[in-house]
């Protein structure tokens, strides 16, 4: 390829970038709610099973395929899929790996703007929940509803542009500015600063929460230890069950697998792209493992020890119960009440939401880069033009989510079809492509080149049989429990239909670009395959492209 390929500048840089992609709002808001709602400590058993049998093998497969294709000059998913899959159909299936990050970005950037907006509100003291403690919860809920325009479509765009739209514009420009700077100068530099800063912010808030003691003498049962017990002690999901009865509930296993998928960016169309910027001698086994561990420690040790215990101490079990099922309710409605009661709450509120903002930026950057790589590779255009085209696609999509804000229906619908369904499908395709088309044994052999850690011998068996079976179970359970209700709800709101049409529009546009790029990629794949076969790992058969 004529153009000089981008590369990460350091080992630690790529690990922090991949972990930054994984560490996000879900670590701090979705995980604790899931644990508390799905059996407490018992939830961690299906969680660890999903981590070991699903996430780690798929992550390694993504790292290996990404590095392999990257060494042959491919960085975008359709090109990687086409090169490894040896059939044109794989290129077109690669469109899912573009749709997921691009469309998720459209609403994720809005949530990112809320985090920055809330951090700013704490910094300037503009969050006012009134003086009556009994009315704080209602005031906080109303503040959030007004802030995001949850009561009426177009609320944040009518009567002058509202606060959250300005923050949306700021974070949008900020994201594109970093992406424009490139992989090493932009993403890597930002993650090298943001990840340690985010950890420091998290530790500050964690220390504050763990030293709260029993702040309200009128409620001696509301202590930090009780809060930790409320979240972590094994408990039944239904009345009358034993402490470990949650393990027999398929919904708990589904919730655990969903959490692992969501938190590790598995099947998000990111890791292959990031791994394609590795150098020839770079390790993938230890790097993949370290990125996964970084995400897990932030999720379990920061997310698991801050949110629920803090809310329990000030609001009790009853005050928390209604918000456990919703990350937004927990993060943007309950926690402001907690910070209102907490000594130094304004400072800690700012630190908390600023930390969420940093986590969200690291994640949203990883959603843009795969699309930028695709535009550069498919149209042979520069970074400036790629950023401009991607902006033209994502701005209207994001404005769509901002406008249809009533009940956050557009956001929820897109999250369901793209952030859940397409992620499962993409992960399944990746496992099949790696294990059965590329070859698990061949992939494992390739991973050993430059590896700083031994790839477990069980990896090939796991990725060929265990992971697909686990994926099938999770997908079936998800479809049985969630799909009928979502399909039925289409009758209730036109916005759901518009949202799906918007997703379909983006998909068609991307498929057209893949079609345009197909011939060029096929020629480049033939060239790369003939070079690769001489080097020992060539796989793409020219006749099959």
């Amino acid at each position, binding site marked *: 390829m004529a153009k000089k390929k981008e590369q990460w500048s350091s080992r630690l840089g790529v690990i922090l970038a991949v972990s930054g992609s994984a560490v996000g709002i879900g670590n701090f808001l979705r995980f604790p709610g899931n644990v508390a709602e799905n059996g407490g400590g018992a939830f961690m058993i299906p969680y660890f099973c999903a981590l070991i049998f699903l996430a780690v093998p798929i992550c390694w497969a993504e790292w290996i395929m990404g590095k392999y294709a990257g060494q042959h000059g491919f960085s975008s998913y359709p090109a990687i899929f086409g090169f490894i899959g040896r059939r044109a159909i794989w290129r077109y299936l690669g469109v899912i790996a573009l749709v997921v990050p691009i469309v998720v970005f459209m609403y994720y950037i809005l949530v990112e703007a809320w985090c920055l907006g809330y951090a700013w509100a704490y910094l300037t003291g503009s969050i006012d929940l009134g003086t009556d403690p009994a009315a704080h919860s209602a005031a906080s809920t109303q503040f959030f509803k007004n802030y995001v325009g949850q009561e009426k479509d177009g609320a944040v765009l009518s009567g002058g542009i509202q606060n959250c739209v300005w923050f949306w514009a700021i974070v949008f420009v900020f994201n594109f500015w970093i992406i424009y700077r490139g992989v090493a100068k932009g993403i890597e530099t930002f993650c090298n600063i943001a990840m340690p800063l985010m950890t420091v912010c998290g530790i500050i808030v964690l220390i504050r929460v763990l030293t709260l003691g029993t702040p309200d003498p009128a409620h001696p049962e509301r202590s930090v230890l009780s809060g930790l017990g409320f979240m972590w002690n094994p408990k039944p999901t239904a009345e009358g069950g034993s402490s470990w009865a949650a393990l027999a509930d398929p919904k708990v296993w589904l919730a655990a697998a969903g959490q692992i998928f969501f938190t590790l960016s598995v099947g998000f169309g990111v890791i292959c792209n990031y791994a394609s910027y590795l150098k020839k*001698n770079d390790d993938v086994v*230890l790097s993949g493992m370290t990125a996964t561990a*970084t995400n897990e420690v932030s999720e379990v040790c920061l997310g698991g020890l801050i949110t629920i215990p803090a809310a329990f101490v000030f609001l009790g079990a009853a005050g928390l119960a209604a918000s456990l099922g919703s990350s937004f309710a927990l993060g943007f409605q309950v926690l402001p009440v907690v910070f209102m009661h907490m000594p130094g709450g304004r400072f800690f509120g700012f630190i908390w939401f600023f930390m969420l903002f940093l986590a969200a930026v690291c994640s949203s950057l990883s959603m843009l880069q795969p699309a930028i790589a695709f535009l550069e590779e498919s149209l042979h255009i520069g970074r400036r033009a790629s950023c401009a085209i991607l902006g033209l696609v994502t701005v209207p999509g994001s404005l769509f989510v901002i406008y249809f804000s009533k009940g956050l229906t557009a956001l929820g619908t897109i999250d369901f079809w793209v952030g859940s369904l397409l992620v499962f499908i993409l992960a399944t395709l990746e496992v099949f492509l790696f294990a059965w088309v590329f070859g698990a044994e061949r992939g494992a052999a390739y991973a050993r080149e430059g590896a700083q850690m031994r790839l477990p011998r069980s990896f090939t068996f796991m990725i060929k049989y265990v992971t697909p079976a686990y994926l099938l179970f999770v997908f079936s359970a998800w479809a049985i429990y969630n799909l009928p209700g979502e399909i039925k709800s289409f009758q209730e709101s036109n916005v759901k239909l518009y949202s799906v049409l918007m997703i379909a529009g983006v998909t068609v546009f991307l498929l057209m670009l893949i079609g345009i790029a197909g011939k060029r990629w096929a020629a480049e794949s033939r060239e790369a395959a003939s070079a690769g076969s001489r080097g020992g790992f060539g796989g793409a058969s020219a006749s099959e492209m």
Partner: protein
Amino acid sequence: MLVSCGTMIVWTAWCYYRVLTAPHPTDPGYTP
């Protein structure tokens, strides 16, 4: 809680120890 958090902390510390100390393929005398 202690088991979960302890496992994650030890696992992450071990990974970073290996990343920061393991010989790199470009180092002289490297053996995989």
